[in-house]
């Protein structure tokens, strides 16, 4: 006789009726709560992209999206950082998945197969494996929950403590405890049921049949199956032949067997109710607690936007005051937050003791969203004590939060939106105000005369082409820092000498170039960004060039992703076909890579230097340029040692997003640039290589502050290329003049 799952064993009729009354109520509460939450997403504005809702849904259903979602969910691929965390997340996740599938199978077994077809799915060998799997994964789940409890209540890492309260209706709902209760009562129900089975089996074999009880237990089976079961028991076969396949339950049963039968049955019924009610509570809790992210996170991953990461979406020029000024996608994002705190672990502002935690801003928005009624909601302001200006001004727009976020929240966009409202009100950080006034007045943040912009080139000894007057292959958009900062100027000249030596045909815009505005936009001054872009585009449209070359990664980013609005990277005048000729934007590291590869520059004196390379945020993370600078370094003989934080996880120097103009927030811990310098020092390398003029300034300062001037050299990549390519004996000949011009 094959084993089968017992149907509502030892559940009195009244309990059974109650159960089936409760289930629809629970479902109604869950659906109503979910709809209430989802409606809040649509309190916001439309996204700038003109895409119909139908198209959005079609895009969300694309296999690529689901593939990515499945990868994220099944392997929790974006969560894993340390082994403990991996094991914990995986055990809880897979425990829940298997138990959920098991519960679903049991529902089919009970409410479909048995009810309508007088048959069962969970029977025979399949039932045995089912029992084994449920037990094993119950244990797996409990192990995960124990790990989670250990971490949350004993280790208590700071990142798990939410920075805001009132983010959901039931912030303190014990999710972990409820899950554990469900698992434990599940085992108890099984153990008590098996214990009763063991006792009954003995009674039956002693021929003192408690036929009434057994009939009651088998009342849900059809008459034939009921007879068969009773007959099987009468033959002395075990009541639950699959019992030993549930090792935990069976073990518990052995322990509980000595209890009186009445106690076993009573306890079983109590555990059954606790189990059911806990499960119902958990389901109802989803829309009302942080567990809502179970729905919002996947939704967010599916409805993600596919614009280049380097383009900051700006919906309202005057910025964001209430949740209603945000877009539906941004509101969905804040709801997707799982409070994992990873963003603040990688945030240079948070790590240096600034008042900003990216998740804090997200949670603050989420809390205000909760307070905003769905109907004709007059929304409370997000600013003031809720999100303080100091928090917003701390952000260096480095994008590390966005990069690490398991559910792909775009924190930098949110922060820029909020900053824009502060700027609109004239509430601008002191140092930033100086810079913005200078940029309005002079087109550069240094408050220097525009006429002095090309002054860096004076000591070069060769004239630079004026790209406004003659055609050039490369129009070099030099950028503010590279033009005006005394230390960066040195490097700018070296780049010029290298290009000159390699026979590159290039020119500059002289005093007509203005700050490109990347950081102006991220600081929240959208009007000024538009003005700067207008002025620069006017010059670019009038110039004749084939490619745009940049020194500053920030300039690179905005020229590449935000200047040509059609995304084509084209700046020139319209052609006859209505399109602009495509003019790619290159960073100087990319061009040096190309020049070295095609032999226009040759590393005559390889450097034999151990160095590490700092990925600039706006070159690496936002634009994916990781390999060219590394290839350059290897070509000139640098033994490259990577810092722990490199590539997409590079750690910002703290200068971006306009931070370089702002005063330091009093920092109880070390500044981002100092942390970075210590990271490089720990590698024991001689040199920290940078590829951004702002990095040069930040790290040269930081090296002094940590007292490592003698141990660590901060050098621009171009300086190393220059050292390796120049002709050795004659110091008067500054650079090797290469003759194989290919430009």
């Amino acid at each position, binding site marked *: 006789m094959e084993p089968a799952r017992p149907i509502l064993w030892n559940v009195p009729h009244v309990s059974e009726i109650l159960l089936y009354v409760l289930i629809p109520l629970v479902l109604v509460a869950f659906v109503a709560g979910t709809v209430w939450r989802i409606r809040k997403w649509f309190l916001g504005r439309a996204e700038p992209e003109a895409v119909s809702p139908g198209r959005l849904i079609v895009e969300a259903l694309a296999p690529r999206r689901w593939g990515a979602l499945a990868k994220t969910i099944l392997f929790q691929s974006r969560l894993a950082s340390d082994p403990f965390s991996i094991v914990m997340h995986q055990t809880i996740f897979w425990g829940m998945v298997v138990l959920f599938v098991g519960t679903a199978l049991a529902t089919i077994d009970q409410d479909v197969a048995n009810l309508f077809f007088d048959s069962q799915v969970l029977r025979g060998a399949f039932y045995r494996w089912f029992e084994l799997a449920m037990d094993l994964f119950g244990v797996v789940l409990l192990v995960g929950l124990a790990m989670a409890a250990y971490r949350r209540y004993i280790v208590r890492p700071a990142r798990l403590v939410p920075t805001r309260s009132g983010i959901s209706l039931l912030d303190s709902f014990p999710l972990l405890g409820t899950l554990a209760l469900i698992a434990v009562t599940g085992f108890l129900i099984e153990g008590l049921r098996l214990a009763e089975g063991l006792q009954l089996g003995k009674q039956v074999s002693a021929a003192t049949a408690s036929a009434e009880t057994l009939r009651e237990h088998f009342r849900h089976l059809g008459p034939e199956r009921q007879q068969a079961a009773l007959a099987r028991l009468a033959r002395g076969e075990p009541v639950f032949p699959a019992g030993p396949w549930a090792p935990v339950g069976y073990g518990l049963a052995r322990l509980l067997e000595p209890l009186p039968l009445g106690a076993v049955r009573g306890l079983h019924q109590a555990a059954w109710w606790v189990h059911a009610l806990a499960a119902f509570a958990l389901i109802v809790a989803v829309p009302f607690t942080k567990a809502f992210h179970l729905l919002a996170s996947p939704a967010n991953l599916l409805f993600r936007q596919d614009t280049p990461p380097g383009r900051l979406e700006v919906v309202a020029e005057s910025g964001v005051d209430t949740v209603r000024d945000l877009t539906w996608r941004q509101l969905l994002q804040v709801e997707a937050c799982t409070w994992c705190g990873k963003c603040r672990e990688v945030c240079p502002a948070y790590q240096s003791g600034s008042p900003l935690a990216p998740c804090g801003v997200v949670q603050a928005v989420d809390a205000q969203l909760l307070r905003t009624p769905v109907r004709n909601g007059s929304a409370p302001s997000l600013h003031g004590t809720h999100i303080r200006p100091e928090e917003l001004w701390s952000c260096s727009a480095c994008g590390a939060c966005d990069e690490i976020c398991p559910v792909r929240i775009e924190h930098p966009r949110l922060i820029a939106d909020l900053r824009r409202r502060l700027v609109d009100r004239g509430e601008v950080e002191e140092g930033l105000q100086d810079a913005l006034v200078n940029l309005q007045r002079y087109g550069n943040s240094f408050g220097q005369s525009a006429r002095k912009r090309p002054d860096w080139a004076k000591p070069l000894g060769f004239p630079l082409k004026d790209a406004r007057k003659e055609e050039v292959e490369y129009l070099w958009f030099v950028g503010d820092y590279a033009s005006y*900062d005394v230390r960066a100027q040195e490097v700018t000249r070296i780049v010029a000498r290298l290009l000159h030596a390699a026979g590159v045909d290039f020119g500059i815009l002289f005093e007509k170039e203005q700050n490109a505005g990347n950081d102006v936009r991220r600081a929240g001054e959208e009007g000024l960004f538009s003005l700067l872009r207008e002025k620069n585009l006017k010059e670019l449209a009038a110039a004749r060039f084939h490619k745009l070359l940049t020194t500053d990664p920030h300039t690179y980013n905005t020229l590449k992703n935000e200047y040509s609005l059609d995304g084509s990277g084209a700046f020139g005048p319209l052609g006859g076909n209505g399109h602009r000729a495509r003019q790619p934007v290159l960073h100087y590291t990319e061009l040096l890579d190309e020049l070295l590869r095609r032999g226009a520059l040759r590393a005559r004196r390889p450097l034999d230097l151990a160095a590490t390379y700092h990925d600039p945020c706006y070159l690496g993370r936002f634009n994916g340029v990781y390999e060219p600078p590394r290839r350059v370094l290897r070509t000139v003989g640098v033994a490259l040692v990577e810092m722990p934080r490199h590539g997409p996880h590079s750690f910002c120097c703290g200068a971006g997003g306009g931070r370089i103009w702002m005063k*330091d927030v*009093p920092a109880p811990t070390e500044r981002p640039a100092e942390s970075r310098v210590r990271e490089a020092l720990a590698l024991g390398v001689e040199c920290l290589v940078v590829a951004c003029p702002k990095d040069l300034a930040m790290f040269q300062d930081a090296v002094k*502050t940590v007292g490592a001037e003698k141990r660590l050299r901060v050098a621009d990549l171009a300086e190393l290329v220059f050292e390796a390519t120049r002709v050795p004996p004659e110091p008067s000949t500054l650079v090797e003049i290469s003759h194989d011009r290919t430009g």
Partner: protein
Amino acid sequence: MSGSDILVLAEVHRGTLADITFELLAAARGLVGGSGGEVVALVLSENGAAFAPALGAADRILLVDHSALANYAPEPFLAALAEVVTARSPRAVLIGATSIGWDLAPLLAARLDAPLALGCKAISAEDSALAVTASFCGGKMVAELRIDRAPAVLMVLPGSFRAAEAAGKAQVEPCTLSASLEPAAIRFEEFLLPEAGDVDITQQDILVAVGRGIQQKENIELAEQLAQVLGGAVCASRPVVDQGWLPTTRQVGKSGMTVRPKLYLAFGISGAPEHQEGMKNSELIVAVNTDPRAPIFDIAHYGAQVDALELLPALVEAIGARKG
């Protein structure tokens, strides 16, 4: 008293004569030269006789004593000044470019329809006229002015003349005025003093600034010693404050204070633009740094390429030797 006298407005601020007074007396002495005119100091105060001994550099001291002059308010001061100038018709009236001078010099010139020169750095007498060198446009332009009508009202920049020493005993002459000196529309109420705390480096005439080149916290003491003998205070660039060697109240630069002392001695400061922003307007900058390319030398008036730690004690010693 004649038309070749030079009248100096002695400035009394909270019970003491302001330093500018002695600089003005020196300028006036240079102007009267051999003309036969007198250097006349005018004290507008309550109980001004007490200041007479300190004003020995003048030939004559005019005292206007009045309770309405106990504390500054423009109307009584202007009334008294205008009456004295009208009565005495000096060749020139010298007033310091101070808080009071910025009121009284232009107001006096306007009331008397007299020529006025702001920003005077040098003044000389050329037969019938005065030749004035005035700095304007934030020091980026210098104008030579010729004034041939008396009285000329000259507002003199502090620090343009070496303070005059009290040479002898001036003749003290009390004045009684016909004008009413009661304040009319503008009434003095009280002085608001800054809250006591750490040294306010923005108010120091002499600053000894230390940077990363100071190497260790213990070496701050060397700078303190020099500040003490010079009568100034110690301030620092950001790295030093970052290390917690000095409080943030002593930080000069973009993220700290902006200072404008008479003397800024920079030891071991390379002079990043952020630091320069806070101190480049100091009247005299002397920079000491081992790196000859340090940008601080671009804005310093004097520089030395030596080790700050060696020079600090040498300076203390040299000053001690000079003072005897």
